[in-house]
């Protein structure tokens, strides 16, 4: 194996985040290579979700830098992060409960629209062809995740597993370069997990999207990820390939359980 120079799509440098004195994230640094699936693991409260929130602009860190594809920042609002090509799903489903599956996925297309609201209101100009184009793009995503039968169903009425899939579809619709998934398989049974893993791998291989996911099921993590980062109480305790991390004694004692 030759040593290739890997471009890192995402780089975190000494990110620290605290809430009213409680440090949720403590000087975390790691890098995610372009095109890889990176798993972020750690017990509950380790700071994994907070880290994802920092990257996606929901929380602003007190210290540290984020580097994404040649741009660098510390504080950035969620909207601007989305514009740069980062999309995410949430741990507790954040779908728009009052809308159908198709409408939810279509909201993901809003950054790709060219027509203004006036054109849409009067149905003139760029608005005319665009509805069809966006619908087509949304349909591609729906097809990719096998959601066709539920296209017009109100998402609030769907079972949990399907809702998670719709949220994934909505994130995918934005055509992101980096996809952040917060426990995409939480609450699923073995079959559903396998299906979701398959989708995530497809997204990575076929669409070339870099994926960072938080996941508690170690089997899944070992199976699909190229790179694992381990957190414990807001600090990084492991960083490397799945096999290396699995054998790291510090990780074992903190997370996987020490043998007495």
């Amino acid at each position: 194996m030759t040593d290739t120079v890997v471009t890192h799509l995402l780089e975190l440098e000494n990110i620290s985040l605290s809430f009213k004195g409680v440090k949720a994230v403590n000087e975390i640094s790691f890098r995610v290579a372009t095109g890889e699936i990176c798993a972020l693991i750690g017990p509950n409260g380790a700071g994994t979700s907070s880290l994802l929130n920092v990257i996606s602009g929901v929380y602003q860190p007190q210290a540290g830098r984020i580097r994404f594809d040649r741009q660098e920042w510390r504080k950035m609002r969620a909207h601007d992060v989305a514009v740069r090509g980062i999309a995410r799903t949430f741990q507790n489903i954040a779908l728009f409960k009052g809308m159908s599956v198709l409408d939810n996925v279509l909201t993901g297309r809003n950054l790709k629209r060219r027509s203004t609201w006036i054109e849409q209101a009067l149905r003139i100009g760029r608005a005319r062809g665009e509805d069809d184009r966006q619908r087509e793009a949304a349909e591609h995503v729906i097809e990719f995740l096998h959601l066709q039968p539920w296209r017009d169903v109100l998402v609030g009425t769907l079972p949990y597993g399907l809702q998670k899939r719709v949220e994934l579809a909505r994130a995918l619709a934005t055509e992101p370069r980096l996809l952040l998934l917060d426990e995409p398989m939480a609450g699923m049974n073995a079959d559903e997990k396998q299906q979701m893993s398959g989708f995530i791998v497809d997204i990575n291989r076929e669409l070339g999207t870099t994926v960072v996911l938080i996941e508690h099921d170690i089997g899944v993590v070992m199976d699909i990820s190229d790179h694992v980062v381990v957190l414990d109480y807001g600090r990084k305790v492991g960083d490397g390939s799945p096999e290396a991390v699995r054998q790291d004694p510090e990780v074992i004692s903190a997370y996987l359980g020490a043998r007495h």
Partner: protein
Amino acid sequence: MEFFFEVLIGGLLAGVMYALVAIGFVLIYKASGVFNFAQGAMVLFSALTFVSLLERGVPFWLAFLISLAAMVLIAVAVERVVLRPLVNRSPITLFMATLGLSYVIEGFAQALWGAQVHGLELGISDEPLELGGMLLSKFDIFAALTAASLVLVLSWLFNKTRLGLSLRAVADDPLAALAVGIRLQRVWVVVWSVAGFVGLVAGLLWGARLGVQFSLSLVVLKALPVLIIGGFTSISGAIVGGLIIGASEKLAEVYLGPMIGSGIENWFPYVLALLFLLVRPAGLFGERAIERV
């Protein structure tokens, strides 16, 4: 300079009256998570009942007790018909339900007792009392003392008794409270009755000052700026908010009024609350909600 203080203190004392109404809101909000738009109607109804009984020759304390009983009945009815079916719905839905409720109570009050203005004599005259070179209204001072004692009693209720603990639990999470065996319905009836009692007291004081009439229910709207400044969940906040609104309203009326025009007090409290919100979105004492994603 003395004039300024006179106006200021007059405003503060008026603010105490606002605070009284606001306390009723805080109670209900603390325990049912509902912004009870019908509070004003409750104030009106209780005052109207009391005054009408008085006018029919019923002695003071009996009339008070009967009015209080009426408020408890209303509390029971509200819990049964409005709160129970709407448990766990969105706050906006509950707010709109209280909007409807206010119409029902107002209509009922006027159907029962008529729409005329009733004067109310509480036995404390509005004579000025001289204190330190300033003229203060005896009535206002009485109102302030009443409010203060009410606050003390309520604070004790909320913080030191088991009932108060149940109330706070229910405010936080009704389902969880149910799960630990707290009797939701009973708690709600108690809270709305207490709020009814507070409303009665407020109604009597306001009624003695303005006369018991329909516009009493508009006082509820002034309570909103009070709550915004003081926070929706704090009784002491309601007091502070009331004082601030009362004082600033009076001062604006006296000092800004001649420049801009009369009737400023109609909108000044709201604009003040609005500006306040922009700086402190959770009010002075309110809790900042942390949104967990």
